C-alpha cells in the first residue's frame, strides 16, 4: 500500500492543509509519498521532504504546473498512479479542482472531504452542510480522496528526511492558461490555520465598519478575520473570507461571531471550533445555540468596549 499526496502550495511554501492530508494518508497504512507540482517550487519540495512520515517526494517543476491548472496537473498525476493505491489531497480549492479530474479519468468514484479514516477501511464524510455524517466504503480498486483539514492533526514539519525525485508529465495541455490573480497579501494569520478568528456578518453594514469594528478586535487578539456569506455577497470583504458549507471550513481555538445569525450553512463551517463566542442583538439568534459564551448586545457598542478592555 502506497499513497500519493498532492501538495497544496504557492510555489514558495507548503500549504498547512497538506500536513493534515499527510496525516490522513498515514492512516490508510503503508508508505506516503508527496507530489509537488509547481514552477520554481524547490523550497516546497524541500519542506515536504522534512515532514514527518513522508518517505519520498516527487517533484515536477515546469512552467505548465506553476498555476496548478487542472488540465495540466491531472495528466501528470494519472501518469504516476500506476505505482500507487491511493491519491489524497487536502480539500482546498486546488485539491477540489484537480482530484475529480484524475478520479474520472481512472474510473474511480472519489470520496470527498473525509473527516475520519475508520479501522474497517471506511471513511466518514459530512454531507448536508455537516448535518449528516455518512460512513462510506468503496469497492474501487484504488482510492481518490480529499481531506477536510479540520478532521486531522497536522503532521510535524520536522523529523522526515525523504528523498526528492524529479518527475515529469505531459506538460501544457493547451486547454487553459493563467491570465491574472487577485490575491491579497495580509499580515494576519491565515483563516484556516488561525487559532483565533473574529467573523463579521450582515450586521456590519459596510466594509468601513469591518475596518472600524472587526479589525481592531482582530488586531488585539492576533486573529484572522472571517465573514458570513451575506457580508461577502454585499462586498464588505473579499470572497476568501467566507466561512461555511460552501466557503472555508475552520476549527480555531476561539471563534467570535459578531452580527451573524447562525444559518446552517454558516454553522457548517465553524461549529467544530473549540470555543464559540457570539455577539448578537437578537437573543433568539440560532448562533447562541452553538455558542459557549453568548452576549446579547448591539455590536456597535459592545465590540469597541471589548476591544478597549483587552
Amino acid at each position, binding site marked *: 500500500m502506497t499513497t500519493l499526496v498532492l501538495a497544496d502550495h504557492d510555489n514558495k511554501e507548503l500549504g498547512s492543509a497538506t500536513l493534515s492530508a499527510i496525516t490522513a494518508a498515514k492512516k490508510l497504512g503503508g508508505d506516503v509519498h508527496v507530489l509537488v507540482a509547481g514552477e520554481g517550487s524547490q523550497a516546497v519540495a524541500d519542506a515536504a521532504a522534512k515532514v514527518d512520515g513522508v518517505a519520498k517526494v516527487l517533484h515536477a517543476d515546469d512552467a505548465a504546473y506553476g498555476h496548478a491548472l487542472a488540465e495540466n496537473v491531472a495528466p501528470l498525476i494519472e501518469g504516476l498512479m500506476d505505482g500507487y493505491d491511493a491519491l489524497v489531497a487536502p480539500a482546498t480549492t486546488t485539491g477540489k479542482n484537480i482530484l475529480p479530474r484524475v478520479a*474520472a*479519468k481512472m474510473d474511480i468514484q472519489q470520496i470527498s472531504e473525509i473527516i475520519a479514516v475508520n479501522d474497517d477501511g471506511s471513511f466518514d464524510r459530512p454531507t448536508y452542510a455537516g448535518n449528516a455524517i455518512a460512513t462510506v466504503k468503496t469497492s474501487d480498486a484504488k482510492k481518490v480522496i480529499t481531506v477536510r483539514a479540520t478532521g486531522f492533526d497536522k503532521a510535524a514539519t520536522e523529523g522526515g528526511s525523504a528523498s526528492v525525485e524529479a518527475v515529469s508529465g505531459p506538460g501544457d495541455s493547451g486547454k487553459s492558461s493563467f491570465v491574472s490573480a487577485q490575491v491579497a497579501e495580509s499580515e494576519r494569520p491565515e483563516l484556516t490555520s488561525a487559532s483565533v478568528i473574529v467573523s463579521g456578518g450582515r450586521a456590519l453594514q459596510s466594509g468601513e465598519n469591518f475596518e472600524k469594528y472587526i479589525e481592531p478586535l482582530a488586531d488585539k487578539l492576533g486573529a484572522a478575520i472571517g465573514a458570513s456569506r451575506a457580508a461577502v455577497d454585499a462586498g464588505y470583504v473579499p470572497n476568501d473570507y467566507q466561512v461555511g458549507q460552501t466557503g472555508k471550513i475552520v476549527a480555531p481555538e476561539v471563534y467570535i461571531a459578531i452580527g451573524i445569525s447562525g444559518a446552517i450553512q454558516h454553522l457548517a463551517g465553524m461549529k467544530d471550533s473549540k470555543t464559540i463566542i457570539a455577539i448578537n442583538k437578537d437573543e433568539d439568534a440560532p448562533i447562541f445555540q452553538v455558542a459557549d459564551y453568548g452576549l446579547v448586545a448591539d455590536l456597535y457598542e459592545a465590540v469597541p468596549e471589548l476591544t478597549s478592555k483587552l
Partner: protein
Amino acid sequence: MKILVPVKRVIDYNVKPRIKGDQTGVDLSNVKMSMNPFDEIAVEEAARLKEAGKADEVVVVSIGEQKAQETLRTGLAMGADRGILIVTEQMPEPLAVAKILAKVTEEESPDLVILGKQAIDDDSNQTGQMLAALLGWSQGTFASKVEPGEEGVNVTREIDGGLETLKLTTPAIITTDLRLNEPRYASLPNIMKAKKKPIDEKTAADLGVDVAPRLETLKVTEPPKREAGEMVPDVDTLVAKLKEMGVAA
C-alpha cells in the same frame, strides 16, 4: 453558442435535514425540495448569456426520479428553452452522473456546460470536474465571472487566496460559485410558458451508462451535538472569559 445546464433536485436549503431512525440516510419524505442553489446560479448565467445575444439555446438536463421534472420546469421558467430528463431509480454517484452528462453532451454538442460547483445534499464538488475529464475539455470551477470572447472564455474563479482568472479554450465546463450572479425568481407568465416547453425523457440504460454505485453507505449519523453554553451579562464578563482561555492578556 449553445449552453447545457445540468440541474439537481435537492432538499431546500432552508430545511434542516433529519436523519432517519435506522441511520440509512436523510429523511426526505414530506420535505420541501428545490433546485440546488448553485444550479439556479448556473441557469441564471446561461439565461443572461442568451439575453445578451451571446447564446442562442439553453438546454437544462436533470438526472434522478420522475419528480425532477419539476426542477426542469423551474429551469425552463427561468429562461431555458427545453429540458432533458434522465430517469434513474436512485440518485447516481457523481462519476455516474458525469458519465450520463458526457453522453448527453455528445448528443447535444453544446459550447459550454455550466454546472453548480456542488450540490447542497451530497456536498461532493466533483461532477463538473469529472465531466471535463471524460470529455477532455477545459474547466473553470468556482466561477464568479464568465466572459465569453472571440476565442475561448475567460473565467474568474473564487480560490482560497482570493480570485484568479483563467482563459479556457471552448468547448468548456464551468462550475458556479455564489457570487456569479443573483438568480431571478421566475415570473408567473414565464412559469405558464414553461409548461409548454418540451421535455425529452430517457433512462440511463438508453444512454448505455452503468450507474451501479461504487460506494456503500454503511450508516448516516448526526454529528456530535454542541451544547449551548452560557449567556454572559456584559462585556466585562466576556473579557474575563477570554483571559481565562489565555487568548487575551
